[in-house]
C-alpha cells in the first residue's frame, strides 16, 4: 500500500543524500537530506505511538511552513492517523473551533503565539491531550501546563520508543489502507464555519500521480526542480506542491522565512516551479510597475520599451497558446539580453520553467504580462474537495481566460441545467468530517462532486469559469452578472488590491474598492500629495479620481449591465482578524457588504 509516508521512506532509501528541503537558518539555507527527513519523521512517528495515537486519530499542526510541519505530517500518515492543518493566522476562536471539531488529540504549535491561542480555548477542546511547541522562546520555564511538551521532549520520547520497539511504525505502515484518512483539510469558508474535507490515502495518491505525470500539467518535475514553499501548508494547493510533489517526484522544497519575505526569498531560491495565488502575481506585477516608474530616466525609458515589447509578445503568445513564433522568439532573445534576464532575476523567476496560478480567479492581463516576459504561466483549477485535481492549462496549449483542459484520469462535466461544474475521479474526497449533511449536499444524486462554480466548456474542451454559484448577481433588470470577472479586471491594476462588486436585485452595480497601500502611497508621493494614514489616503480627491479612471477604463470592456456605476473606497485594509477575509485572504463578500453597509446604502441612496 503506497502512502505519502512510504514514498518518503522509499526516496530516503533510494537517494539518501539528495537534498529534500532547505530552511533558512541565521542567514544560511540549511539543507536537509532525504535520509534525515525520513529519520526525523520516523522518530516523530514513534513519539506519536508512545503517546498512544491510534489509527484514525487526528494530529493538528499550527505552524508556518517548516521542516517540522512535514515531519509531523509524514509521521502522522505513517501511523495511520490524520493530519489537520491550521492556518498560522487563525485567531484563537477559529483555532478553538477547528481543534474541537476535528477532535485533535495532539497539537504541534509553532511558538508562544500559537500556544497561547490553544491554551485560551483548551476548555472547548476536551479531546486535546498534548500541545507540542517548536520554539521554546517565551514558553520554556515560564509555562507549566501539564499538556505542554517541547519538540525536543517529543523527539526524546520518540527515540526511546524507537529503541524499545523498532518495528512498531513499520507495522502501522504495513497495515495502512486505501481509505485511511490521510488529512483533514478545512475549507476556508467564505460562508459559514470551515468544513473539514477528508482526503484519503487513495485521494492523495491519485492527486500525486495526476499532477506529476507529463500528460497532466505537461511537465515532469524531478529532483533538480526547486520550489519555494510559502503559502499555508494547510491549504490543499501548497500541500500538493510542497509535501506531495516533494515525496512524489523528489522536488527540492525551500521554505520561505515568512509570507512577507516571499519576494527576497524568491530572489535567493530562484525556483524552477512556482505556484502562486492571484494576489502574489498581482503583487509582483505591481512591484515591476512601480520599479519602472521610480527608475531614473534612462532605465524608465528602457523599461517602457521592453515592457511594451513584452506586452506585444504576451498578446502573440496568448493567441498561439504559448508557442513562440519566429518573430516573438527573436524579439524575446534581444529583450532577454537587454532586459528580461535581469528583470526575471530581480523578481526571482530567472529559472522558473513552469508557473502555476490557482486557488482563485485571476485576470488574464496579469497572466499575459508574465507570459510576455518569458515565464511559462499556466492557470489551473481544482478545489479542496477534489484534492486540487480538475483542469489545467498545459505548456504551449494555454488559453487565457480559461482554466484549461481536464487532467488525465479526471472527469469534469458542466451540469446542463445549472451550469455548475462537477467532477468525478479517484481524488474526490470522502466527505466532510462529522458533517454528513454537508457531505450529502456536496454530491449529486449520481455521485459527482458539486464544485459550486459555474462555467462552460468550449468546443475543444477548455473550461471557462464564470463565478461561484452563490456569487452570481441578478440585477433588478433580471440580468445575470458574474462579479468576480469584473473584480479581477479591476484588480489587474497595480493600484487596486480588493474589489467587491455588489448589486443583487439592485438597478445597477456598485463596487467597494480597497486600494493597494504601497503603490498608491508611492503614486501620491510622486505627485507631492501629503497624507497620513491609509484612511486619509483613501479620502484624497486625487486618489478617488485615480480609481475613477481605472473603473472607467474597465467599464469600457463591459456590457452596460456589467458596468460599475458608483464606487466607494474602503476606509481600511481588509483583515482576517476582523472577519473580512478568510485565512486564504479571500474576501468574505457577505461580511464586507454588511460591515460597510452604510457605504453601500450611500451609493444606492441617490437613485431609489
Amino acid at each position, binding site marked *: 500500500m503506497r502512502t505519502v509516508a512510504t514514498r518518503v521512506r522509499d526516496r530516503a532509501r533510494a537517494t539518501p543524500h539528495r537534498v529534500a528541503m532547505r530552511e533558512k537558518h541565521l*542567514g*544560511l*539555507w*540549511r*539543507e536537509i537530506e532525504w535520509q534525515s527527513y525520513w529519520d526525523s519523521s520516523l522518530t516523530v512517528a514513534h513519539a506519536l505511538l508512545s503517546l498512544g495515537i491510534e489509527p484514525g486519530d487526528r494530529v493538528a499542526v499550527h505552524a508556518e511552513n517548516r521542516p517540522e510541519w512535514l515531519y509531523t505530517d509524514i509521521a502522522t500518515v505513517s501511523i495511520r492517523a490524520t493530519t489537520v492543518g491550521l492556518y498560522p493566522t487563525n485567531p484563537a476562536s477559529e483555532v478553538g473551533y477547528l481543534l474541537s471539531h476535528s477532535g485533535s488529540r495532539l497539537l504541534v504549535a509553532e511558538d508562544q503565539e500559537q500556544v497561547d491561542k490553544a491554551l485560551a480555548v483548551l476548555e472547548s477542546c476536551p479531546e486535546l491531550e498534548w500541545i507540542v511547541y517548536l520554539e521554546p522562546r517565551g514558553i520554556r520555564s515560564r509555562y507549566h501546563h501539564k499538556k505542554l511538551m517541547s519538540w525536543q521532549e517529543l523527539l526524546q520520547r520518540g527515540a526511546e520508543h524507537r529503541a524499545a520497539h523498532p518495528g512498531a511504525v513499520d507495522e502501522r505502515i504495513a497495515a495502512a489502507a486505501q481509505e485511511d484518512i490521510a488529512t483533514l483539510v478545512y475549507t476556508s469558508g467564505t460562508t459559514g464555519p470551515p468544513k473539514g474535507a477528508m482526503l484519503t490515502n487513495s485521494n492523495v495518491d491519485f492527486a500525486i500521480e495526476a499532477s506529476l505525470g507529463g500528460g497532466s500539467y505537461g511537465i515532469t518535475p524531478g529532483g533538480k526542480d526547486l520550489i519555494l514553499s510559502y503559502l499555508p501548508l494547510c491549504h490543499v494547493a501548497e500541500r500538493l506542491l510542497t509535501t506531495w510533489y516533494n515525496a512524489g517526484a523528489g522536488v527540492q522544497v525551500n521554505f520561505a522565512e515568512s509570507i512577507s519575505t516571499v519576494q527576497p526569498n524568491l*530572489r*535567493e*531560491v*530562484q525556483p*524552477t516551479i512556482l505556484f502562486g495565488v492571484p494576489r502574489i502575481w498581482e503583487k509582483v506585477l505591481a512591484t515591476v510597475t512601480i*520599479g*519602472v516608474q*521610480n*527608475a*531614473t530616466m534612462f*532605465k524608465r525609458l*528602457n*523599461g517602457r520599451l*521592453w515592457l511594451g515589447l513584452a506586452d506585444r509578445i504576451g498578446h502573440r503568445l496568448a493567441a498561439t497558446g504559448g508557442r513562440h513564433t519566429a518573430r516573438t522568439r527573436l524579439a524575446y532573445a534581444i529583450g532577454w539580453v537587454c*532586459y528580461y534576464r*535581469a*528583470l526575471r532575476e*530581480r523578481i526571482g523567476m*530567472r*529559472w522558473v520553467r513552469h508557473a502555476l496560478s490557482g486557488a482563485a480567479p485571476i485576470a488574464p492581463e496579469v497572466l499575459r504580462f508574465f507570459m510576455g516576459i518569458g515565464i511559462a504561466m499556466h492557470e489551473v483549477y481544482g478545489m479542496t474537495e477534489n484534492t486540487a485535481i480538475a483542469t489545467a492549462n498545459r505548456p504551449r496549449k494555454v488559453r487565457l481566460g480559461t482554466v484549461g483542459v481536464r487532467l488525465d484520469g479526471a472527469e469534469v462535466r458542466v451540469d446542463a441545467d445549472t451550469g455548475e461544474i462537477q467532477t468525478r475521479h479517484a481524488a474526490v474526497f470522502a466527505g466532510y468530517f462529522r458533517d454528513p449533511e454537508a457531505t450529502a449536499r456536496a454530491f449529486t444524486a449520481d455521485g459527482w462532486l458539486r464544485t459550486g462554480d459555474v462555467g462552460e466548456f468550449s468546443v475543444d474542451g477548455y473550461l471557462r469559469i464564470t463565478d461561484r454559484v452563490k456569487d452570481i448577481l441578478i440585477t433588478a433588470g433580471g440580468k445575470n452578472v458574474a462579479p468576480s470577472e469584473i473584480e479581477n479586471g479591476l484588480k489587474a491594476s497595480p493600484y487596486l488590491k480588493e474589489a467587491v462588486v455588489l448589486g443583487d436585485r439592485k438597478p445597477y452595480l456598485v463596487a467597494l474598492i480597497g486600494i493597494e497601500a504601497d503603490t498608491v502611497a508611492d503614486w501620491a508621493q510622486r505627485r507631492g500629495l501629503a497624507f497620513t494614514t491609509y484612511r486619509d489616503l483613501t479620502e484624497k480627491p486625487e486618489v478617488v479620481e485615480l480609481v475613477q479612471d481605472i473603473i472607467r477604463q474597465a467599464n469600457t470592456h463591459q456590457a452596460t449591465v456589467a458596468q460599475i456605476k458608483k464606487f466607494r473606497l474602503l476606509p481600511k485594509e481588509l483583515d482576517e482578524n476582523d472577519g473580512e477575509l478568510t485565512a486564504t485572504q479571500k474576501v468574505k463578500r457577505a461580511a464586507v457588504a454588511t460591515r460597510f453597509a452604510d457605504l453601500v446604502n450611500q451609493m444606492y441612496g441617490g437613485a431609489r
Partner: protein
Amino acid sequence: MNRPLMHHRYSSDMALLNTRAKKVAMLALLAVAALLALLLTDDYLQLLATGAATAIGIIGLNLATGYAGQVSLGHAFFLAIGAYTAAAISGDPHGRTIGLGITSILVWLPAAGLVAAAVGALVAPLAVRLRGLYLAIVTLGLVFVGGYVFGEWRELTGGSGIGRPAAVPELFGVRLDRSTALFTRDQQLYWLMLTLLVLFALAARNVARSRVGRAFNAIRDRDIAAGIMGINLARYKTIAFALSSFYAGCAGGLLFCITGYLTPDNFNLALSVVAIAMVLVGGAGTISGAVLGAFFFTLLSPLTKALPSLVPAVTDDATRTPNIFQLETVAYGALIVVFLVFEPRGLYGLWVRLRSYWKAWPFSY
C-alpha cells in the same frame, strides 16, 4: 543554474570574491598588472612601482583615517621612520652613515614596519585623549619634531640636503635593484612592489572586515557610542595607530628603494598632506580607494610633465610662472575640493555608483 544569493555556508556569504564575475575580473586584473612589466618601458614601470609602494602607505593611512576616523597629518613622520630603519639595517657598514649590512628584504621590511608601529603605539595615547582637529594638529607636530631630529642626526640620515643611500632590496641573494640577465632593474622592482601591494592590501581588507575593522568603524562613526557598546577605545585606537604606522613604515622602506637615495627633506608637511589627499580622492574607508588614490596621484605627475608640450604658456622651468610644479599643487588642491564637494566617497565612490547602477538594473533600487 547558479543562485548567487543562496548561501549554504558563511564562507560563501563572506567571500571577498563572491561571484564568478569578480573572480574572473580580479584574476584578469592581476594578470594584466603582471604582464605590464613586459610591455611598458622602464620609466613607466618605475612610476607604477612608486605607485604600488605609495599605495601600501596610503592603505595604512586609510586604516587609521578612513576606517578608524583618526585624522593623522603625521604620516610623513612614520614613513621617515620606516625609510631610515630600512636604510640603516641594509646600509653599508663601512659607509658614511649608520649601516648594519643586512640587505635581505625579509629582514629590513618587517623591521621597518615594526619600529614604525612601535613609535605609532607610543603616539597612540595622544589619540586616545584627543580627537578631530586637535588630533590632526598634534600629529602635525610629529612632522616638525621628525624634521628637526632627522635633519640633525647626520650619522643616520646624512643630514639635510645631503642624504644617504636608501635600503637595498635583496631577495634570496638576488639584488633586485640591479638588472639581471633576464630582467631589468625596474621590471624586478615593479614585480616586487606589485606582489607586496597585493599582500598588504589583502591583509588590510581582512583586518577591515574582522572584529578589529568593525571596532574601527564604530569608533569613526561615534567614539562615545562605540565606547558604550563595549569597545575598548584605548586599545583599538592604539591598534589603529600601530597598524597604520606599520604600513607607513613598510611603505617608507620600499618607496626609496626605487630611487635609491633619500634626504630628510623628503619627509615634510607636503607629503603628509598629499597622503591625506590620496585617501580622500581615492575613497576614505576602502582599500581599493586607497590604491586608486595612490596610483591616481602618482600618475598625475607625468601628465603635468607632458603639459608644456601641449600648452606653450606652461613651462617646466621652476623659476618661471606658470610652471608645472605650481600647476601640480593647484591640481591637488582643486581635486580635494572637487571630490569633497561632489563625491565624498572618492574615486571608489564613482565606481560604487557605476556598479550599483548596473546592479539594480532594470530598476533604480
